[in-house]
Structure formats: structure tokens, C-alpha cells
């Protein structure tokens, strides 16, 4: 029998309950993530010892005068972006898996990445003079449009069945990829190259500007995701059960999809396609704290952040001086995991 902790924030008309293991698991994940961040910030051309990293981040003069620049301008924002992107992808994945009741659903499967890529390359081709600073907006728009189309077209008989969502998503991803190839043929070759590098799923040279552009999305949509946890629990039992529990199923599903796309789109717009995080993190979280979304969402978020931070560290260290985009590292771990999931979900 699982034990629960009931949380009633004073003065708020809400309460939720958490699995008893959630706080401990969250604490452990946070510690691992922090350790990963410190290692990540310390690693590089200029190796910096963990104590010096902490001191520099806290603004205490440490060792070399250059540490301040290296740590605070180059490495710290990058590692924070990695973390934030991981959080966003993981929560988006958790929501999507909850809505579709399909453990294999991931933002990239419903076409979010392909839409973002198409929009970004289109922007470069259609408006060559436009600053790269607008790429994230285009990518976000593309993700949103494709996800909306996928949702609308999957709609049938008063609902969008999870199965159709996935299938229609596959179709749209294929179409967007083909259109991207065509756009590349039209585009100015250097500019397109730049867009492709940027979309390849990396946090290379991401700075404070990118972090601050991403944070509002997290600040707005993470609480909404958490607030939707109970609806997700109901939807997870099936549409009929959810309806009998008094839920307006389609409305809930739609609003949760908006949250999911906003998070995934913001993440892809910031760092490109970092594959399989949205798939893996919720699963790992489910193994750790069970399927109840009140605990699952925060744990998945922390897991996702941890995964990307560690992947970035591995990507920088493994083939140094060549830097492997962290998206490829997550894919290399994620792909076999995916196969394992396929095997486990055989009774789908």
C-alpha cells in the first residue's frame, strides 16, 4: 500500500497529495543535478575545481581573474539553459504520455520538432536579412502550428483519440521534413547551414539572453502543468472514466496539449531537437514515484533537467576537443531505452 502526503497550501483553495517517496526522490535528483552542473561548469579548456566553481558563481573572487568570465558568461548560462530545456521537454513528454495514455508518445512524435525546423528554415529562406534572434520565435510558431493541425485533424466524432494523434503526427512530421529539404535547396547556403547547426539539438554558446527568453515560458506553463496533474490522472483512466468523474474531457485535453506544445516548442526553439528526453524522463520518474501525476510531473522535470545537463557534460568531454551536441548523447541513451519501452509496452 502506497503512502501519501497531503499538501494543503495555507490560504489557497487547493490541495494535492504526493506519494511519500516524492520529496526524498526529488531531493536526491536535485543533488545529482547540482553536482552535474558544478562538474559541467568546471570542465573545459580552463578546468576549474568544484569549490572554485561554487565560489565564482556566488560572486566570491576565486583563483584566476578569468574565472568570472568563463564561468558566469560562458558556462553557467549554458548549463542553466540545458537544465531548463530538459525540464520543459520532460514535462511536455509527461503530459503527452498522460493524455494519449501511450507510454511511447513524445513531443517529437507529434511533429513539434519537425514543425519548428521547417519554420526556422523557412524564415531564413523567405527573409534572408532577418536576424537569427528571431529564429526561436519562428521555431515556436512552427511547432505550435503543426501541433494544432495534428490535433485538429485527429479530431473525429467529438474527440481526438490518442491513437490518431500519434498517427497524424507521424504524417505531419514526414511532410514537414520534406518541405524543410526543399527550403534548404532554395536557401542561401551559409544561412541555411547556420540554421541547421542551431537546430541540431545543442546548447552550444547559449547565453543569458537565451535563458531569459526561455524562463517566462517555464514560469507560466510549469505551474499550469502541475495544476493539470489531477486531470491527467483522470484522463489516464480512460475517457469514459474521466467523463464519469465529471471532467470535460476534450477541453481538458486541449488545454493540456497547449501546455505541452508551449513547453516543447519553447525548448526546441532554444536548443533545437534534443531527442528522447521527453520520452525517457517521464518513464524514469514513473519508475521512481509511480504514475500519480502530482508527484510524477516535478520528478520528471528534475530528471529531464538532469539528463540534459549530464548529456551536455558527456558531449563536451567524450570526444574532446570535438564537441558532440547533447541532443545526440540523449538520443544514444534514449534509443535503446525506447526499444526497451517498446518491449515493455507490448500489452498496449
Amino acid at each position, binding site marked *: 500500500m502506497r503512502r501519501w502526503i497531503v499538501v494543503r497550501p495555507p490560504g489557497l483553495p487547493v490541495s494535492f497529495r504526493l506519494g511519500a517517496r516524492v520529496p526524498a526522490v526529488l531531493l536526491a535528483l536535485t543533488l545529482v543535478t547540482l553536482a552535474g552542473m558544478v562538474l559541467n561548469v568546471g570542465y573545459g579548456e580552463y578546468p576549474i575545481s568544484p569549490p572554485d566553481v561554487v565560489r565564482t558563481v556566488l560572486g566570491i573572487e576565486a583563483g584566476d581573474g578569468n574565472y568570472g568570465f568563463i564561468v558566469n558568461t560562458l558556462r553557467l548560462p549554458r548549463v542553466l539553459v540545458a537544465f531548463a530545456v530538459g525540464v520543459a521537454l520532460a514535462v511536455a513528454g509527461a503530459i503527452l504520455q498522460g493524455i494519449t495514455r501511450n507510454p511511447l508518445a513524445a513531443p517529437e512524435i507529434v511533429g513539434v520538432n519537425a514543425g519548428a525546423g521547417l519554420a526556422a528554415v523557412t524564415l531564413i529562406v523567405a527573409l534572408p536579412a532577418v536576424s537569427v534572434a528571431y529564429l526561436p520565435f519562428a521555431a515556436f510558431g512552427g511547432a505550435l502550428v503543426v501541433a494544432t493541425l495534428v490535433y485538429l*485533424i485527429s479530431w473525429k466524432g467529438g474527440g481526438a483519440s490518442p491513437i490518431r494523434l500519434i498517427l497524424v503526427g507521424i504524417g505531419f512530421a514526414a511532410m514537414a521534413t520534406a518541405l524543410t529539404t*526543399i527550403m534548404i535547396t532554395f536557401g542561401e547556403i551559409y544561412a541555411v547551414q547556420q540554421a541547421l547547426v542551431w537546430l541540431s539539438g545543442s546548447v552550444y554558446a547559449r547565453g543569458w539572453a537565451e535563458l531569459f527568453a526561455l524562463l517566462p515560458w517555464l514560469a507560466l506553463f510549469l505551474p499550469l502543468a502541475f495544476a493539470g496533474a489531477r486531470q491527467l490522472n483522470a484522463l489516464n483512466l480512460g475517457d469514459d472514466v474521466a467523463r464519469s468523474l465529471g471532467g470535460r474531457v476534450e477541453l481538458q485535453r486541449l488545454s493540456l496539449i497547449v501546455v505541452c506544445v508551449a513547453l516543447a516548442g519553447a525548448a526546441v526553439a532554444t536548443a533545437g531537437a534534443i531527442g528522447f528526453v521527453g520520452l525517457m524522463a517521464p518513464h524514469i520518474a514513473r519508475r521512481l514515484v509511480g504514475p500519480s501525476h502530482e508527484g510524477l510531473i516535478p520528478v520528471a522535470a528534475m530528471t529531464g533537467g538532469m539528463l540534459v545537463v549530464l548529456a551536455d557534460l558527456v558531449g563536451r568531454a567524450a570526444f574532446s576537443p570535438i564537441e*558532440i551536441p547533447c541532443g545526440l548523447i540523449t538520443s*544514444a541513451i534514449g534509443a535503446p531505452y*525506447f526499444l526497451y519501452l517498446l518491449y515493455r509496452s507490448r500489452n498496449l
Partner: protein
Amino acid sequence: MGVRVWRSGYGRLLGLPVGVVALGGCLVLSVRFGAAEISTAEVIRAFTDFDDRSTGHLIVQTIRVPRALIAACVGAALAVAGAIMQGLTRNPLADPGILGINAGAALAVVAGVFLFGIGSIGVYALFAFLGAAVTAVVVYGLGSLGRGGMTPLKLTVAGAALTALFSSLTTAILILNERTLEEVRFWLAGSVAGRDLELFLRLLPYMGVGLVVALSLGRQITTLNLGEDIARGLGQRTGWVKALAALAVVLLAGGAVAAAGPIGFVGLVIPHVVRFFAGADYRWILPYSAICGAMLLVLSDVAARLVLRPQELPVGVMIALLGAPFFIYLARWKVKR
């Protein structure tokens, strides 16, 4: 009424030569039009009165004819492979591209180049067959795990998953070897441009065997498509039929990928179109799929050459633009859960 006449054995039999003639017409178009401007008279003279000093004649004979033939064979192979997969798995969404077989073959080729440095395109074929075979087994296995056996959804999701997996692995290898694998990268886009005729001739026997095996299985697949129990009840040795059909798919799809890179959706679209006038009998669906698949790829290749002239698009892109909406249409309106 018209459809009924078509679906009578008579109409369908008559339709085959008509289809062959239409395919011939497409081939003529493919030889007639291209990046270079060559007059019809010149094109005809290239066949009747070949002059090896004429630029136009050389283009027709050494570039366009091989290209048209390769496109036709690849299209036929993919369409028949798709038809068999749809019949065998009773999955209307089955296609060598969607079920990951193309991606598996592509990964095998790229990994072959990466790990063993295979330089000659000729060895691509071996790896492509291997990759296609392994993927087919894995997809089929993953798609039939669990309660209720194989369902279209499970199979499609397994295919999409493997495609995602294989594509990211392929990308990883390409990034690690940016310098040396540019050529493969172009091949990956799926194109019949500038393909080596020699390689193609070496692949042709495999694809030919695949096609013969496939066409001879028409009756068995029709029965199997009614359900495995019924087929067994009718005395069919379903295990053998499935194994032979899978062999045909691997030979056809693997050969097509080795010749032209991964081209999706031909195997999806064509059998559906064919079923509209050929009915549900695979003895008819398979040959018609071969003809129509060949026509689709040849025509798409002509379009790929003409839309951005003198630049070319990979034909795989053209097909995806056509096929992906069709896939969405099927998923939305035709698939019951």
C-alpha cells in the same frame, strides 16, 4: 458500373497491358524531359541514329535512360513491398518507409561505411539487405508482442519509433564523420539521379527474385488477409507463406534502398490506389502495384527535375509531399482503432 467492369477478371486482365503502355509513356516522358533542353527529334535520333559525339544523344543514352529504368524498378519494388506488407499485416498504413525498413537499411549502409570503411557503392547493397532484414524482424516482433497480437497501431508506432531511433543514430555517425560521409548524406535524401547503372544491374537479380516470389504469393496473401485462422482453416501453411513474403519484402525494399536511398510512401499510396480498381485480390493488386509504383516514381522523378530546373530535388522529397498527406488521410478517415 465502370468499377464493376474493371473488377471483373476480364477487365483486370485487359487493364494490365494498358498499364504497361501507360508506364511506357511515363518512361518516354522521363527520357524526353530533363535539365538539358533536347528536342524530341534529337531524342528519337539518339535511339535510331546514335552519334557518340552529340551531347544530346549522350545525355539521353547515358543519363536519362538508365535513370528512367532505375526509377521504374525502384518504384515497382517499393510498391509491391508495400502491398505485401499491407496484406500480410492487415495494416493499411504499412509501408517500407513508415515501418522503419528503409531507415534500417540506411543505417546499416552508413554504419558499414563508418565502421568498415566500405568505399565501393557495390557493398552498400549487402548492408542494405542486412539492415532491411533485421529491421523487418524487429518491427514485426515488436509489433506483435503482447495481448491481442499484432495491431496496425502497434506496428506503425513500432515502425515510427525505429525510424526515429535509426535516423538519430545515422545522424550521430554523420556528425562524427562530417568530412567523409557527405556522399552518403546525399544518398540518404532518396534520389535516382546519377545512380550507378552497374550497381543497379547488380541489384536487379535480387529485386527480380523478390518480385517473382511476391507475385507468386498473390493467392496466399489474399487468403491470409482474411485472417490467419481462416487461412489455416483453408489448409494454408501460414508460416511458410509469411516467411516467403518477408523474404520478398526484404529483397525488394533492401534492393530499392541500396539503389536509390530511402524513399518512403510509394509502398503506402500505391496499393490503396490499386485496390480501388483491382479489388481485394492480391493476385491483381500485386502486378498492378508494380506497374503503378513504377509510374509514380518515374513521374515524380520527372517533376523533381523540372520544378527547380536546372537544380534537382531528391525524388524522395517529391514522393513524401504526395504521400504524407495521403497517410494523414488514411490515419484520420480510414483507420479504426
